[in-house]
């Protein structure tokens, strides 16, 4: 019996039990959280909306935020190891104390990982000031100066820009980019190589090698937690395999369409004629010429036995899934319990994918909704 590649992968993932997670990954996760000592996380906010922090706080698939920050009582005798030394949105410290907390974490024996949320403006110092007098000679600390300083320290074992803003500029960098905002690697690339606040070419190369981008608007908490746990489990000796945009292939390796429930219902590659049915919010029905594509009205679910519950493809409604790489269609969002698939996702809810994990978001993905 011949089965499609799609069906074969579906059977594999069902058999694996946990979507996208093999038994080995599960063991690594438990091992990571059971290690004593460990990496300190310094989480700095630039021009952020704080959505990435909120997404992290909703982590449930691998582990909850309480476990990450306060320790997991289920792991007897284990101390919490994902030591988030500083995250401003959740921090008990305020004002001047923050500077000393960050400096202490940056000097910690086991090193630290710098997590960045939000874009970094370069147009003027006043566009994002985050504190005063943190390190010797810092003066007023801007997010751009802070990340350049901390990322360049040898004790910084990894830099993890979280969210499309920190990775590629994102929303603040959308045209006309009023504050000349940049993503982290662009900020490093454009930094002067001599003079005050310089980063040498060799240092730039080293920083790039230890950067792992976790884009998304916001990113799924699993991507953040999974990546940090990977670093911990391998004792920082190994970084996850990354693509050209430096995103971990585990989470960003496949296009949305590859695992989308609606693909089979209506993709143009179906062997049934007419080929392909798409939701078009202009309500055009009937063949659309050239290949027999049909555009149906949004509430036309057609044959309930075949199409329920997924519905037709949203490409004609503005879905950017065909040029977006992430595992949203597989892992989905809001896992009700540990190791369970999420309850829903954008396309599942009828909202066309915005392509928020791509470096071209938002300008390259605009217009988001094709409505006449």
């Amino acid at each position, binding site marked *: 019996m011949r089965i499609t590649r799609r069906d074969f992968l579906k059977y594999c993932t069902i058999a694996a039990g946990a979507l996208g997670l093999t038994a080995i990954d599960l063991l690594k996760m438990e091992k990571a959280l059971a290690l004593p000592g460990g990496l300190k996380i310094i989480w700095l*906010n630039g021009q952020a909306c704080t959505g990435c922090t909120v997404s992290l706080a909703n982590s449930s698939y691998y582990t909850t935020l309480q476990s990450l920050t306060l320790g997991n009582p289920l792991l007897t005798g284990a101390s919490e190891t994902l030591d988030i030394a500083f995250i401003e949105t959740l921090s008990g410290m305020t004002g001047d104390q923050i500077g000393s907390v960050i400096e202490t974490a940056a000097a910690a024996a086991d090193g630290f990982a710098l997590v960045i949320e939000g874009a970094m403006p370069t147009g003027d110092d006043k566009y994002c000031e985050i504190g005063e007098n943190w390190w010797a000679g810092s003066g007023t600390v801007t997010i751009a100066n802070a990340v350049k300083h901390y990322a360049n320290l040898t004790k910084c074992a990894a830099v993890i820009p979280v969210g499309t803003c920190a990775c590629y500029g994102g929303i603040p960098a959308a045209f006309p980019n009023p504050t000349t905002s940049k993503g982290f690697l662009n900020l490093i690339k454009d930094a002067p190589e001599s003079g005050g606040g310089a980063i040498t070419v060799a240092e730039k190369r080293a920083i790039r090698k230890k950067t792992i981008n976790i884009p998304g608007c916001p990113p799924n908490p699993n991507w953040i937690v999974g990546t940090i746990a990977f670093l911990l489990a391998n004792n920082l000796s190994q970084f996850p395999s990354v693509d050209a945009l430096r995103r971990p292939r585990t989470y960003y390796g496949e296009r949305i369409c590859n695992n989308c429930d609606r693909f089979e219902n209506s993709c143009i590659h179906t062997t049934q004629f007419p080929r392909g049915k798409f939701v078009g919010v202009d309500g055009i029905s009937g063949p659309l010429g050239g290949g027999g594509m049909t555009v149906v009205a949004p509430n036309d679910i057609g044959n309930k036995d075949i199409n329920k519950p997924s519905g037709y493809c949203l490409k004609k409604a503005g879905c950017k899934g065909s040029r977006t790489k992430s595992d949203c269609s597989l892992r989905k969002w809001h896992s009700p319990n540990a190791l369970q698939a999420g309850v829903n996702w954008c396309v599942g809810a009828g909202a066309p994918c915005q392509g928020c994990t791509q470096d071209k978001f938002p300008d390259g993905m605009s217009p988001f909704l094709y409505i006449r």
Partner: protein
Amino acid sequence: MSDTYKIDPISRIEGHLGIELTLEGGSATDVKCEGTMFRGFELILQNRNPRDAVILTQRICGV
């Protein structure tokens, strides 16, 4: 005799904020709030498909 206290950054909020407080004999006589972050959404929204506004403005705050 007045004392000036500056709390910058303020934690457990969305975004960035600094407060400068002047106390005189136990009473606050002056407070300055400093908004320490700017992105320019009003400028970003111009000259776009109006239906994009929903997608873009929802990123003002992620809480």
